[in-house]
């Protein structure tokens, strides 16, 4: 039965290897609503947890195209439409001279989109999250590795999941309150 106050069960592991093996087993067992928390990025986890590839590169590409269009657009509009000025008979739309600013704005917009896209997709800043209610979770930013199976997973069962997580060699399994 689902307890509305329970966010999930959190298993603590000593090393990255144990965590990756556990994540793989849990995924094989059919658990889907789960997440791992680690002190540094571990590539094997992405695949072990069955995570989808991020759309972030597309977000950055959109930013880049937008920046490119803004840079070229503003220079063309001001030189050709808004304030045409004949300088020594040179063409108004002297595009080679517009390249440096177009390039800089492309990079600027793509970078801003990449960073804010990453923060946005990750839902940061996030002032509160239930996992921080586990006292030992502070070690997730030092030397411990956590796997959290969330209560909203259809296969979640407080007792069975707890036994399953313990059987994976977890040091400790704790309940995460909402």
């Amino acid at each position: 039965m689902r307890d509305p106050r329970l966010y999930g069960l959190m298993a603590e592991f000593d090393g990255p290897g144990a965590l990756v093996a556990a994540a793989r087993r849990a995924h094989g067992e059919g658990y889907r609503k789960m997440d791992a928390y680690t002190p540094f990025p571990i590539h094997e986890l992405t695949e072990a947890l069955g995570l989808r590839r991020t759309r972030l590169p597309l977000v950055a590409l959109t930013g880049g195209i937008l920046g490119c269009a803004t840079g070229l657009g503003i220079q063309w509009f001001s030189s050709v439409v808004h304030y045409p000025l004949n300088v020594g008979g040179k063409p108004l739309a002297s595009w080679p001279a517009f390249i440096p600013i177009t390039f800089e704005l492309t990079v600027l917009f793509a970078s801003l989109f990449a960073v804010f896209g990453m923060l946005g997709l990750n839902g940061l800043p996030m002032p509160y999250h239930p996992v921080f209610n586990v006292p030992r979770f502070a070690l997730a930013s030092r030397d411990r590795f956590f796997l959290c199976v969330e209560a909203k997973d259809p296969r979640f069962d407080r007792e069975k999941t707890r036994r399953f997580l313990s059987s994976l060699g977890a040091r400790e399994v704790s309940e995460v309150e909402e």
Partner: protein
Amino acid sequence: MSESIERPPGEGRGRVTPPPIIEPGHTFASVTDKISAIVLGGRQPLFWVLGFFVAFLLVLVFLTAVSYLFAKGVGIWGVNQPVGWGFDIINFVWWIGIGHAGTLISAILLLLRQDWRTSINRFAEAMTLFAVACALLYPLMHLGRPWLFYWLIPYPNSMALWPQWRSPLIWDVFAVSTYATVSFLFWFVGLLPDLATLRDRATKKPAQILYGMLAMGWRGSALHWHRYETAYLLLAGLATPLVISVHTVVSLDFATSIIPGWHATIFPPYFVAGAIYAGFAMVLILAIPLRAVYGLQDFITMRHLQNMAKILLATGLIVGYGYVIEAFFAWYSGNPYEGYMILNRMKGPYAPMYWSLLLCNLAAPQLLWFKRVRSSPPMLFVISLIVSIGMWIERYVIVVTSLHRDFLPSSWGMYSGTIWDWSTFVGTIGLFLALMFLFIRFLPMISIFEMRTLVPEAAVEAEAGKKK
């Protein structure tokens, strides 16, 4: 694409070549504790207190010089006809050059999978930010009416005017401000997981709140890490051409004019190489005392110093090639003004500057061919100082000797900096150092989470995990 993304290099592939990039015996916990203790441990060494004190005095010198400048105008400087660009441009180019190493280390070495970059990238990025901040001050002060700086930015205005898009000086505004923004983003994104570590490790309430807010609720989720690494790699890919473009645009400030000695196609690559050269020299100047004072020899090993020394030597040779080609162009062009310019540099009133420039930038780094020199931190420190001074003289020679005698002998003149030029320059050095000291005090100067990936624990067990 994201499937193939590697974590920042240094997920220790077992390396046997001595010296190592991290001394053996370290664990996740020891790396974390050692680096975060510098920030959270409370007491700073005497080096920090004295260093910050001196730097702060120099900041006061800077504030005095700037206050007087704003009260009286740029007439207090030595600039006048015919030398209209003096210390302001020399120092601008010098600082922005120094600011190139940080992003180079973070971005280009990341893409090249040079895992030794991990322990030096954080403070090199901080150095970049502070150097760029110092650089930005100079054009602002040189505007004469700095409060109208926003006229450089295109915005709908009642004067119905636009910036001059065909001017490299406007390109500079976009290049340098983009560079400052992207460098800041790169630095902050790199800091995010470490701020979470500081938040979790802090014991005092103010520190918990401060780092808690800055960490934005980072919790190290696997999904977050996946997007994080993608973002970091994208930034690296974007910053790499950006670094090259910034100093290229700076060199175009000179190269698009027709002044003898400036109007040369060699300028963009020559300036970019000079920037990397000056930047690595400054990284060495900062790294060598820091590792000694804070006992970071385990993390910033001789391997790092030797690699940087090699980069210094390589870029120094490129810069030296630039000097030779400059002289060759002047002769081969057959242009009498170009020819006179180079002879005037070698034999004119500024000849001592020219020869000391060659001594500092071309002769001194040749010592780095010797392994004994590359393995000696004091020698590296001295050579880096000489190179830094040499790079300043280089910009002095380029700016002043070209302007002081151009086409019309009737308009020739001499230039020298006044006391206010010098005090502003010394003041920005103080500002740079003061910001560096504050950074060391309040933020981890080595990337903690990336250092964790270098520890053997991370490697061996991840390998085991791969086997299924």
